[in-house]
């Protein structure tokens, strides 16, 4: 039986790993390679690297970072986000060792390019990023480029519902991002009833919170950012506390 996943999220801005607070302020953490190497060593299920200044500054994907990653011998599945402009960028990101990509800018701006990417890489490689702001019982999509939130459009709903185009949705609680134990679980029940798995992210840090999210059928994974860096072996410690049905067991180097 496939298990749910604990995803270590590393946010990078100006070449440094940062803790992001509500897409608004950023606390520098240091060399992203050290953080990624720790997550790999602790046996996290996937690593999501989001380089948040690439699309904003039209820099394209961060191939330099991807090259450095494989030289430090990461052997954890990798999801990359940041600066992907077209199908060639997407293919090159995969050639540089990523297994999957997250698309945000293209999801909002070019459905045709997104579909071309899906046809080249297969839908299992594509994740749609949806930073969400809750407004009563309504969900608004936050555009990090214009900093404006607006209703989830029909075209985006059609894309994220189509299993031939994308495989999962990265559902980000924009307001609680960076704040411990604060993800609003109501987002899952209010989210449109589509048969696409959700990766919950933004303010997730505690065992009970993760278990509550995993009890929801739609949730296939949770993403945790800087909270994993607070202590050594945080991934193994979390996994030991979570019901074993949900996750693959913790991995310690000495047990293999």
């Amino acid at each position, binding site marked *: 039986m496939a298990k749910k996943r604990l995803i270590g999220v590393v946010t990078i801005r100006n070449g440094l790993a940062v803790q992001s607070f509500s897409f608004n302020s950023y606390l520098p953490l240091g060399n992203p390679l050290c953080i990624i190497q720790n997550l790999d060593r602790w046996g996290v299920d996937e690593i999501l690297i989001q380089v948040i200044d690439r699309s904003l500054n039209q820099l394209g994907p961060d191939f330099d970072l991807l090259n450095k990653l494989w030289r430090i011998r990461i052997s954890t599945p990798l999801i990359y986000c940041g600066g992907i402009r077209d199908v060639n960028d997407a293919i090159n990101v995969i050639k540089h060792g990523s297994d999957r990509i997250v698309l945000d800018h293209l999801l909002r701006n070019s459905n045709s390019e997104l579909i071309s990417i899906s046809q080249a890489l*297969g839908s299992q490689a594509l994740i749609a990023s949806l930073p969400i702001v809750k407004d009563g019982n309504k969900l608004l999509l936050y555009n990090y480029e214009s900093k404006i939130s607006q209703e989830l459009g029909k075209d985006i709903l059609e894309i994220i519902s189509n299993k031939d185009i994308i495989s999962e949705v990265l559902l980000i609680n924009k307001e609680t991002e960076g704040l411990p134990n604060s993800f609003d679980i109501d987002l899952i029940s209010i989210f449109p009833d589509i048969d696409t798995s959700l990766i919950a992210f933004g303010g997730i840090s505690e065992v009970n919170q993760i278990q509550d999210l995993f009890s929801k059928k739609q949730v296939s994974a949770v993403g945790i950012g800087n909270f994993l860096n607070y202590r050594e072996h945080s991934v193994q410690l979390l996994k030991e506390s979570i019901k074993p049905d949900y996750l693959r067991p913790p991995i310690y180097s000495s047990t293999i």
Partner: protein
Amino acid sequence: MIYVTIVDYDLGNQDSLYYSLKALGFKVKISKDIEILSKSDVLILPGVGSFPEAIKRLKENNLSEFLIEWSSKNKPIIGICLGMQLLCIKSYEYQESRGLGIINGEIIALNNTRPHIGWNNVFQVQESDFLYSKMNDFYFNHSFKFKGNKKLIIGNSTFNDENIPAIIKKNNVVGVQFHPEKSQKAGKKLLSLIIKKLVDG
């Protein structure tokens, strides 16, 4: 020293595979040059991509005929994820497309409406040199699966009660539906074992 060449068909996660294999102590190249490919002990077809795009790129790079001829001489090939699927006769991903036809089987959509993404166990269904009764979790990421001669399947996985052929083998050709290079230490150990058994017996 075992010489491994990753077949470069302009698609697939070749760089991470390259560094994984190097870390395992193999002499590794990434190439589409027939002369370099011909001098290898084992070829690896990497994964990540859609079937129609991958088979188109194999043909554009004049690699299809070479791979078919290579396998007809019983030389070792390992296909990973999409690479495994390309070894088969045909696939129905997006459209019906012909594969390399090295392994007798076809690639069909999963019964599940969601893709099989994540870590899962692999259970032995036939004896082999590199698989034991139940293997550690490996990382899967696919929406299509192998359907064919059951005698070729040596390891299975299950996803929401659906059987997923996880490892197939025909003579010196091995296909793995999961990503051993991304399955941390357990995956690297298995990948190393498969290569050594195929080359050294």
